[in-house]
């Protein structure tokens, strides 16, 4: 299975979306004139620097934030507020610390599949917990899990809602490199199993190339907008060690990295041109007189 996705009816359609935060003089436009269409079943990655408005974009699609201008449609219907048809895996995982692994997944299942019997819901929750490899740890609380395991619970909860589209907000950015690599392969496998539409937000170009069908860079904010799309025509499943030597992989990575570097230095130049009057203050020396010595 390979190559560019077929041109089809857009599943997620974002047109002319802008979003500002703050009031009056402090008002800054975070996202400006965003147009994006995602066909059904596509794995789309949006890469950008920290603070470029990536999370705002996810929150807009999730409906947690309302756009100031423009419309967002999913499956032909304008979205109004958040809903379980758009499963979100939050950057901070947002697991409820007083619920176990099962409890966290069950909360999602119970509310989305309220019409199913208790038994059916339990089977469903258990299936997703096992899918992410936490069957043996299903009774543990988030505080007893490692970062990678917490991330898996968050993915299981997102999938258990059986959403039309899965929104991943920098899902692996808090993990160490080795755990990241493992989870990247797992996410690809899980995605390959049911081909859900996925929007992945990340700051890691390699991760985007490994997982996505298409990559769109987000030009750094304020007034962030989307850059040109880069297709990733690599064969799946993509083996992370083999792909490193693939000339196509290298080419895409170079193109995207160059593009991001170019837009970021442009933005930096623009920022330095803006004249800001610096306040005439000297910082206080708040250091303690003598630092306590460790025992």
């Amino acid at each position: 299975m390979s190559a560019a996705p077929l041109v089809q009816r857009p599943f997620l359609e974002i047109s002319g979306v802008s979003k500002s935060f703050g009031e009056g003089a402090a008002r800054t436009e975070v996202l400006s004139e965003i147009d994006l269409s995602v066909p059904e079943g596509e794995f789309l990655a949006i890469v950008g620097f920290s603070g470029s408005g990536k999370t705002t974009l996810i929150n807009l699609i999730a409906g947690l934030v309302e756009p100031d201008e423009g419309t967002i449609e999913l499956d032909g219907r304008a979205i109004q507020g958040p809903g379980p048809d758009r499963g979100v895996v939050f950057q901070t995982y947002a697991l409820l610390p007083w619920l176990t692994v099962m409890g966290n997944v069950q909360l999602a299942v119970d509310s989305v599949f309220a019409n199913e019997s208790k038994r059916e819901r339990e089977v469903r929750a258990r299936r997703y917990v096992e899918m992410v490899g936490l069957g043996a740890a299903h009774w543990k609380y988030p505080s007893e899990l490692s970062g990678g395991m917490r991330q898996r619970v968050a993915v299981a909860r997102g999938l258990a809602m059986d959403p039309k589209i899965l929104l991943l907000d920098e899902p692996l950015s808090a993990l160490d490199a080795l755990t990241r690599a493992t989870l990247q392969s797992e996410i690809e496998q899980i995605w390959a199993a049911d081909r859900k539409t996925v929007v992945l937000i990340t700051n890691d170009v390699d991760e985007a190339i490994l997982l996505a069908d298409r990559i769109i860079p987000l030009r750094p904010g304020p007034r962030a907008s989307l850059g040109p799309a880069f297709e990733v025509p690599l064969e799946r499943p993509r083996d992370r060690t083999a792909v490193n030597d693939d000339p196509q992989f290298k080419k895409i990575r170079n193109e995207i990295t160059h593009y991001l570097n170019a837009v970021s230095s442009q933005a930096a130049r623009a920022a330095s041109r803006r004249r800001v009057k610096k306040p005439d203050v000297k910082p206080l020396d708040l250091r303690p007189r003598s630092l306590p010595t460790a025992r």
Partner: protein
Amino acid sequence: MSTDSPSLRPKGVLKSRVIRTLDGLGLEIFVPAIRLATGEEPGVQIRDLIRSVGVPILSIGVFLALWGSLAASVETSIGSVPGPAQVWTEAQALVDDHYAERAKEVAFNERMEVKKQEWLAKGKTWKDRKYSGKPTYFDQIWTSLQTVFAGFLVASLIAVPIGILCGLSRTMNAAFAPLIQVFKPVSPLAWLPIVMILVSALYTSESPFFEKSFITSALTVSLCSLWPTLVNTSLGVASVDQDHLNVARVLKLPWTTRVFKIVVPSALPLIFTGLRLSLGVGWMVLIAAEMLAQNPGLGKFVWDMFQNGSSQTLAQIMVAVFTIGLIGFALDRLMVAFQRSVSFDGGATA
């Protein structure tokens, strides 16, 4: 516990369980002793032990010595101020008095039982009579504990729901904030007369299930102790993690599920902080209320002793002071244990 046990793991598990239990009960000062007994870093543990046990014992010793040496030199109208030894004697006397009183009651009941059989044998009707001796020191303590828990329960049942509402809705918060600010600093001594008059007017049952005095004291405790719970609950509810609320929004959880599955569990640690403060306030208020209202309990005991004006008065009141302090301390530890059992973050809540 032997230090050369062949398998280390089970002992380690047992030890960490014991340590966690002690921690949970707020008795962490014994942790170094456990560690020392298992031969873990003796130098460090001995230093910890000296600090956590040795220093408190020393400070208590210094306090007792100062008290003992200075007390005798202060003359009052009812004799010199008693030292620790006299207070200890008086405490024992109160314990002895309790057992003597109980023995009297048993004897009385036995006599009545004999009489009852005699009367019934003669074919006369018999009416049970209850022993009407004076309440002992332990009876007073028991009454005070019942009263404080009754008042605390009423306060919690009012404060937690209102606190949740205030935390959830800014409108509710704006509605309650001025009332809370005004009533919170009011002394129990100001509430008490109002409560007494209201209870007399409104609680007029023929055969009351509760004593009037019990209701008065308990309600005074409630009025003074509901504020910390209310304020902390509303703060806890208002500061629920935005990410958790976003989860609720994405899942479109109905209002009740959102409150009971997300908001309340997340606010529980602060709710329990409030409850702990409330119980502390309640216990302090209760003694004052009992004293002023002549309601049974430790406060009345103190007042009665004061009225007695005997040579033992001061010593007896000091026994009461220590009792009140120790019970207050025990109640606080109890609440700390509850607080730890509900805190999901494993954070420090001492």
